[in-house]
């Protein structure tokens, strides 16, 4: 397909429609549930799978080269800060993986305008926001080229 939606689980909430980077998860007007309208523009990025509150979306590998019988399932838990994967091979073997996704609370990033306002002079320098401190070195490196060479080096 690649992504597809289970009829009995989807409640038509539209989270997948809202997140899909390829604009291919749409709501079917008859069934009021989501489906993949353009499978050959699906990257199998799993954005919709991760976003689905009902775990209604799954992936069946591209028919061109993926034999049936496999599954790659995911559970993304923002409050726990983890993502869990369960792989099932065509022959039934399984593998499981868990990784962290974030070390700080969601929503905790400061706006750049929460920092002290830079001076007009600073706007005319080469330093970007939070530099040089955020570089963890004394000063921003620069070049003083003494010659402009051309040709192979």
């Amino acid at each position, binding site marked *: 397909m690649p992504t597809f939606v289970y009829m009995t689980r989807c409640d038509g909430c539209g989270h997948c429609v809202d997140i899909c*980077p390829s604009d291919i998860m749409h709501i079917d007007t008859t069934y009021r549930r989501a489906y993949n*309208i353009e499978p050959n523009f699906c990257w199998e990025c799993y954005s919709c799978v991760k976003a689905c509150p009902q775990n209604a979306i799954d992936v069946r590998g591209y028919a061109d*080269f993926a034999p049936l019988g496999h599954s790659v399932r995911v559970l993304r838990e923002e409050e726990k800060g983890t993502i869990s994967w369960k792989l099932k091979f065509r022959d039934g073997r399984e593998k499981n993986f868990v990784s962290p996704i974030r070390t700080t609370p969601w929503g905790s990033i400061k706006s750049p305008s929460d920092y002290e306002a830079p001076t007009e002079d600073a*706007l005319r320098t080469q330093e970007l926001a939070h530099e040089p401190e955020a570089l963890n070195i004394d000063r921003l490196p620069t070049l003083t080229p003494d010659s402009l060479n051309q040709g192979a080096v």
Partner: protein
Amino acid sequence: MGLFTGRKTVFVESDVLVIGGGMAGCGATYESRYWGRDLKVVCVEKANIERSGAVAQGLYAINCYMGMQWGENQPEDHVRYARNDLMGLVREDLGYDVARHVDSSVHKFEEWGLPMMKDKETGRYQREGKWQIMIHGESYKPIVAEAARKAATKVYNRVMVTHLLMDKTRPNRVAGAVGFNVRSGDFYVFQAKAVVVAAGGASNIFKPHSVGEGMGRTWYAPWSSASAYALPIRVGAKMTQMENRIVLTRFKDGYGPVGAYFLHLKTNTENAYGEDYESTWYDSIKELVGDYVDHQPVPTCLRNHAFLQEVKAGRGPIRMHTKEAFKDPHKEQVGWENFLGMTIGQAVVWASQNIDPKEINPELVMSEPYVMGSHATCSGAWASGPEDYAPDEYQWGYNRMMTVEGLFGAGDTIGGTAHKFSSGSFTEGRIAGKAAVRYVDDLGNDQPRVRESEYEDLMQVIFQPLENYAVGRNEIVSGTVSPSYLLPMHGLQRLEKIMDEYVGGISAHYTTNEPLLTRGLELLDMLKEDLDHLGAEDLHQLQRAWELQHRVLASECVTHHTNFRKETRWPGYYYRADHRKLDDTDWHCFTLSQYDRESGKWAMEKAPVYHIID
């Protein structure tokens, strides 16, 4: 009638308009706010910035980090590395600029909550290779998007920008952009004092290996629709190195990345008979490119070349030798999590085909070509360099400003700066964002104004495919075949076939010549004419129609550049069969193009490559 009357037009005024909310666009948005506290900073994105751009599904490594705080690398080292990989041709001023700033971006990512892997002994970031550090980056994009949302006056999701608008008094000055909301169909007119193009590079301009469902499993995201190039090209911005397309050696069918395998897991490649093959081709590569073959690390294109020759010699498939490494449970975990973090489709392929790299050495493939400016090649707009050291000829205004006044770029958009990757693209966005604020600050009362007739004419053009479909659909009973319109998918498949067969795609073993390119341009001309007859059944197809328009204009540019450079600079990326060898006498230079939209003509010229680092 009908379609145009009653369509809502939304006017948005801004100081800095950022087009595209991927890594570069988020960087530009963040930095614009930091320096322009009172400015209206608007970010517009055709999808949802929470998961948009090339990093939508996450990354398992940050491929551009100097580690200056530990003395690991200096910016000069990175310039030498990128220059070597690109066979001598990079904008050293721009590359140095990204490299000197990139560490501060990465340190902010960590502060914002991106989980970095650390070396247990040193406490430093875990290196995958000399430039790469390893991360648990499933939420890399949502984290960066959170920073951009906090910074923006407003983010417009699901609005696709189709054209830039120019100032009504100064024809070479940008004044805004137009587009449409892919959900509501509202027409959007953005007025801006400065515009930062941070849109995506080009996937799906060459026919991919898989043309069924799998045509979406391209290496670069299928939503990277060349807007990075088409937007500036159309308004006459000069482009550079557009012939410098990239071909990736990746795991077969899923295009799972090999970097961690080579660098961290220390696996290597072999032919079908378990033999090393790269040394076999040493002499023949030397004959084509001379001493470049002896450079370390061996330029990526030359390793591709050896792969291709070995397959043509009938000793494929080429495989990654994983069996030993994967016996180590830590390495096995890294190998799988590497895919799950950034190319889940590869894990799906292996699960479906019972490929466990502990037991089977997986096949590799060389991809179809892509055109982009952020990964290991450097196609994009010709941009002004940093004020403190860029050579005079590379400096005509503000940092990262194109040859159009007030038009800035970052990420895939800016040419000459290879090996930026995610962190470098975000950083280049920051550079462009600060420069744009400075430009706006300097404008004073001399502000650009859009011309009403220009955006009204464009409104007709943008929505025409809906009209074409509505009219033409009545002529036929049912189905997709009409004598009056082409659907976007029809046009895309024609484009991919032309580029594949005439401009050096997979079915031509990446080979072309002047007669092929000339014929390719004739066919592209006819395709461009046919684009006036695109039909779109709904707003989704209207988005596809405009993505196709962008891909076609970028492809035309690629073809002109490929025709202009009369040498084979990057064997393994593409071959000019009529100019087989690298030619440093005549072609150690950049290629530049400029499109004139009135005449439809392209002007080509050379620009010097200045080496400012030894």
